[in-house]
């Protein structure tokens, strides 16, 4: 089962939900990376791929893990270490996934997720201005373009 598209399966189950639910709830993927938790709007997720080896750049670049190839396309994989303060530990256990994201139609990139789950948040549960939301009594950050700029900016 290579690069299985979990997103599609989840999307199917989502479309089975009632129309009212779709209006009232926003669907996100919640991921864990180095004990930090993030959410990403499901429309920004292009694919959830199974873990595959990442080709590292010939020189180490802060914020960048390397590249992978998905069906012939080269996708850069960014490290969330600038956000979590810790380097990714890739023990490649069965739950590790690579999320291919495209935030607001911008450039495509990937991140590592130690685990992924789909969640629905009520639209009443507003995300604070610093992109934080509390889920199950834990703070969770919403990944946005500013994070990407921070990762890439610090790498430059």
């Amino acid at each position, binding site marked *: 089962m290579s690069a299985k598209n979990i997103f599609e399966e989840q999307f199917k189950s989502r479309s089975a939900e009632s129309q009212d639910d779709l209006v009232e709830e926003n669907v996100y993927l919640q991921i864990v990376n180095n004990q930090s938790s993030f959410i990403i709007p499901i429309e920004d997720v292009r694919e959830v791929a199974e873990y595959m080896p990442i*080709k590292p*750049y*010939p020189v*180490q*670049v802060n914020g960048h893990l390397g*590249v992978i190839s998905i069906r*012939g396309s080269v996708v850069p994989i960014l490290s969330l270490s600038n956000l979590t303060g810790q380097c990714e530990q890739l023990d490649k256990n069965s739950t590790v996934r690579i999320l291919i994201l495209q935030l607001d139609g911008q450039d495509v990139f990937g991140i590592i997720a130690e685990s992924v789950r789909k969640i629905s948040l009520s639209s009443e549960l507003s995300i604070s201005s610093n992109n934080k939301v509390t889920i199950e009594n834990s703070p969770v950050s919403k990944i946005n373009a500013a994070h990407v700029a921070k990762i890439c900016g610090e790498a430059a």
Partner: protein
Amino acid sequence: MSETDELMSEFLAEANEILEKVEKSLDEVLSAEDRKPELDSICRGIHTIKGASSMFDFSNTAGLAHELENKLNDYKIDPGLLDESIINDIRNEVSKISTLINAQDKIHVEPVVQDVVEIKSSTLIAPVSVPAQAAAANTSASNLDEFARIPVARIDETLRGVAEIFLIRNQMVYLIEQLRAKQIEQKDFLQAIDLIDSSMRREISELERSAMSMRMMTVKNLFSKMSRIISAYNVDSSKEIQFVTSGDDTELDKKVLDALGEPLVHLIRNAMDHGVESKRDRQLARKPEKGTIRLSARTSGNEAIIEITDDGKGIDAQKVLESAKKKGLDTTHVTDDKSAIDLIFLPGFSTAEVVSDISGRGVGMDAVKTSVLKLGGQIQIQTKLGVGSTFTIRLPVSMSLVPIVLVNINGYQYAVPNQEILETKTLRFDDLKSNMGKKYVEYRKVYIECLDLRTKISTKSAKHEESAKDCSVIIFDLKGSARAARISSFEKTTEVVVKPAPHIWPTLPWVTGVSVLATGETIFVLSLKTIFESLNSDEENKNVG
């Protein structure tokens, strides 16, 4: 696309071609021994434009061409009367016509002539204001951009390739039928298939080459656009600048070429405005009154190198640093002049003390860098105070098949383009000699420096069996002298499609492209020259420090 659209595209392409020829003749007419043939060629060109414009009912363009034709006719009797100022006037008229024609390219409706006259006082490439109804009439403008003029010979070559591949396919079918009918031994069948495979590979690479060549266009048109910008600047400013080009016949992928225009215009404007000094300053600096901007293009491997050089005042690293600090930009990583000068690529940076009409309008060098990076290229600056600056843009020529040697360094595969390689060698460990902390290998009876890439590539060693006795080295050329690079081992030679780097991509001068192998593994295409150069300059910096 309708028939009118097609005719229109043809008209635009031809008109631009004619205008280029006219521009070229204008450049050459004054220095020509016999001015008449050049002047005749200008007259013919303008006359053709007049006729074609009338055909499309572009009365303003036709009117301008008509007036210019009348003016030119006055000099036909005695071309000796032509001088620099008259030629500049004619150039102005030609650029008005060119602006009108190219505005039609964008809006598909002829703009009014007054719009163009207003442009004269600023720059040639300022946008023409488009009447609202004209903009509304724009229905298929985007389709017009998708045309390329291709010599018939190139198309014929491609068709020949297709025919060859079809023949090979027939041979294959025949062989398989023979095998099925047991009229051929399996051993002979496999041998024949091997032969077919090698001809197929040859033909596919030929076909690929000729198909790619259809996308390739020379930089000539782009360079002559730059020449027009400089001519216009000479008219409007107190500076006098001569423009020298070389490598006009260098070919680039059309897509790359189209996207290169904007950054190039910006760099040329900067060179005119901030690089070349005023006549007075040049006199004081004991420089020729006339400044020079050089624009050159050449290819090296799958890379096109475009250089914009001016003999102006150069960039003052200290001033750049101060200005960046004033603007609150992050300067913590600045350790030397080079890193200070690179600050000009940061968003929001501008050193122009006076915001001029030509540049300094807020579109900074960061936009230039972004455009170049998006094309999968890189930009570098070399500058010397009082002497001038060179901006070097390196771009992928095309996304074509590149023959490479697949090498293993610390357990990871990398590609080195064949074109970079003089020779590959597997030496005995004793053949590697040490001297003053550096390694040397013998190549054609001379000891050349050998760089151990295994210690430079910072990826952690993956599983890889390395022979302790042998050492694999690549001999390559660095500015005319041979150098060696030691790798872990050679894998194989193959051909890959080099892709431009994704948009989110760290600055990696060592890597010229990225490719995907048949196994799905991503490989980086390394530039040994750049690795060697950057490591040497790091060393020099250390020594200086």
